[in-house]
């Protein structure tokens, strides 16, 4: 199941400046597991040590936020795009 992960600019330092990563994953959780193995600093920037996606990070499958799908258990299909985006917040 080949899918694409889009990496925000701020996190590309952890993947040799690559804007996208291609990997095999049947679900969002599996995609994150893959990142934990292959790009640990990138994974730690997306998830805390309990495996929870950080509060101000949003994950989308194609154009839909995973909270409106099945969360981390959202299944992925061939060609899906998982986008990591920082939330609109600050101060």
């Amino acid at each position, binding site marked *: 199941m080949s899918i694409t992960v889009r990496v925000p600019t*701020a*996190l590309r330092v952890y993947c040799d400046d690559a804007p996208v990563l291609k990997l095999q994953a049947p679900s969002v959780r599996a995609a994150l597991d893959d990142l934990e193995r292959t790009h640990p*600093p990138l994974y*730690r*920037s*997306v998830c*805390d*040590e*309990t*495996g*929870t996606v*950080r509060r*101000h*990070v949003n994950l989308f499958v194609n154009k839909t936020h995973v909270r409106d799908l099945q969360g981390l258990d959202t299944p992925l299909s061939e060609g899906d795009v998982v986008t990591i985006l*920082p*939330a609109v*917040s*600050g101060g």
Partner: protein
Amino acid sequence: MEQRVILCIGTKKGVFVAESSTDRESFSLRGPFAPGVAVYAALIDTRAEPRIYASSCNAFFGMKVLRSTDLGATFEETRQAPAFPKEDGRALANIWSLEAGDEEHDLWCGVEPASLFRSGDAGDSWDLVNGISNHPHARQWQPGNGGLCLHTIVRDGNRVHLGISTGGHYLSEDGGETFAASNDGIGAGFEPDPFPEYGQCVHKIARHPDAPGRLYIQNHGGWPDSPGIGVLRSDDHGRTWTSIAEGLPSDFGFPIVVHPRDPDVVYVLPLEPMTRTCPDGAPAVWRSEDAGRGWGRLDRGLPGERSYFTVLRDGMAIDDVAEPALYFGTTTGQVWIGRDGGERWDCLFDALPPVNCVKVAAV
């Protein structure tokens, strides 16, 4: 022979490094590094070739530890930041303290939720210190306004003193393997029991190597029904504590600093307890020259009115050059220098982001 004085200034929007010759007449400024990201802890490590460490609390992407090997010309992330084991269930929320350990690359790190980590490789990997992080009291501590943080690590040979808000003072006498609450005399004005075994909101702890057994604490004071619990001294390695607040305009404050060559000289920066700002809008550092038996006001050069900033727990430091200078950073983004031990104050920088911490070293 020291040639330069280095200031490391952690702010709400990154870390800055200021540098001066040892005359401290003028400081250059570089940074911000980790721009836009809050930095609560810093360490200028002078044990060997100087290194600067800083925590970086990224609200989006989590905690990082930054390291500079060129006196703050550049910073890089260490390989890993402290992290709880997955099965622990806790997640790192902030890094509040970085201190040097025994060996050249040993570091100690206090975090939120209140726990302690150690590194043996200059911050590239970290181990949780179970003696305090999984202490039987640990799940009973409550967060103060700044969060549940282990913010102070004071090492004295095999003794290790920790400050936890709100957990109180914990003492190890076996090099950090085991810890016990040691709060006899430290009050908690927000508890029904004004002197509980633990749970105090200790703000900062300081010691001087030339006065074995003596420690100073700035505790959370400012309680009308519990006067004098805010500034304390111990003469028995932190087993018992006695108020030294008499003579201060307020026993509420955050930092407490000891003179580098005279353990009887101690500095605090009293704040109005309800607003946590300068009393009457007129900031002043207060100095005791007799270990807290009496206090005098140091305000020459500081604003005499309309100044309502806060100086946070790590926001004041003193260098160890001849005629030491004090430094404090404010939540309004100013950094002040008090030359001649705080006798003459000048503003070094007046428009930085809100300052969380100020560290200084001569290198």
